[in-house]
């Protein structure tokens, strides 16, 4: 579930609020910071993290239990923004996950099988 909104990193762009398919966040307009308003609705889809341009969010892999997270440790481990980099949505990443995915289509399998 979503466990961290880093007030330090967040630029208040609201993208996570819009991207979350289950509407977990509310925007605190005064603080210009998204708040996790409905944690119980989080489906651990990592979508908000993928969209966040400031690497300010962390979704823990535990989908049903709370996980303790520590921003400094996560940052030190390179975890903040890691999913966005992985799929190639961050600026400066030189490939996308789709490009790296070399799983052959079924046709390729059957073709190989026929030739064998």
């Amino acid at each position, binding site marked *: 579930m979503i466990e961290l909104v880093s007030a330090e990193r967040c630029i208040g762009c609201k993208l996570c609020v819009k991207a979350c398919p289950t509407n977990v966040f509310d925007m605190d307009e005064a603080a210009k910071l998204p708040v996790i308003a*409905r944690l119980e609705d989080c489906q*651990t889809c*990592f979508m908000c993290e993928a969209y966040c341009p400031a690497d300010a969010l962390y979704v823990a*892999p535990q989908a049903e239990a709370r996980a303790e997270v520590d921003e400094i440790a996560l940052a030190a481990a390179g975890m903040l923004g890691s*999913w966005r980099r992985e799929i190639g949505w961050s600026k400066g990443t030189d490939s996308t996950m789709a490009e790296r995915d070399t799983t052959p289509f079924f046709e390729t399998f059957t073709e190989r099988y026929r030739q064998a």
Partner: protein
Amino acid sequence: MPLERAGIDPFKDKFPLTLRYEGTMRGTGGLRLAGEDCRTTVAGLYAAGDAASRERVMGAVSGGGAYNASWAICSGCWSGRGAARHALGAGKSGGPDRRALKPVGRHGLEAGRETDAPIDTTALVGDIQRDVLPLNINFYRSESGVAGALGRLDALREALGGSVPGTVQGRVRAREAAGMLTVARWMYTAALARKETRGLAALTEYPALDPRQTHRLILSGIDGIAVGTERVPHAEELGRADGQAKGEAS
């Protein structure tokens, strides 16, 4: 990626697995299509993807992990074209459809309110899940287990008569709860109507396939649910072949 984040190497480490089962014939059932342009039996209402029934492409198994995505794309194109045609010129007069439509929905909506007390959607959703999520009720299905759950779900309908919160989230939740409850009741009603085991539909009391039930189940209604059947091509041939096989064996 979730495994990586949790520090689990799936090739070396043990990790807990659980079966998630919402128990509908997801990927098969849906709004019944009544034509190749994905029309439904309600004039002007077209269905596509997960919302549409897919038994014609799936038979008695689920389209999940298989046909569903392509079905969503294909039926989306067909239904979009159908709906556009309808809007342009399918009215009775041959011109555009200009019926003055008014909402008739009641379940989980203010229009269906019977008391002033607000709908407690959290409690209602919890109650529904208590009869839908347990594998002992919904995966290992028995006639008594399913009938018990259906009875309890039927009794929950009353809870939908409360008032609906004014917030966007509150309105969505109330409608979602109404949808969950109705689908759960449809699901168990259909499960009890098929007294055999076929494809993904199973009842412990009827472990074998019964050729006489080679038909589709058509459900209609919300307050009272009616069950009908629809013939499928070749059903009779299958029945005859089975009868012959039995005759030869005896």
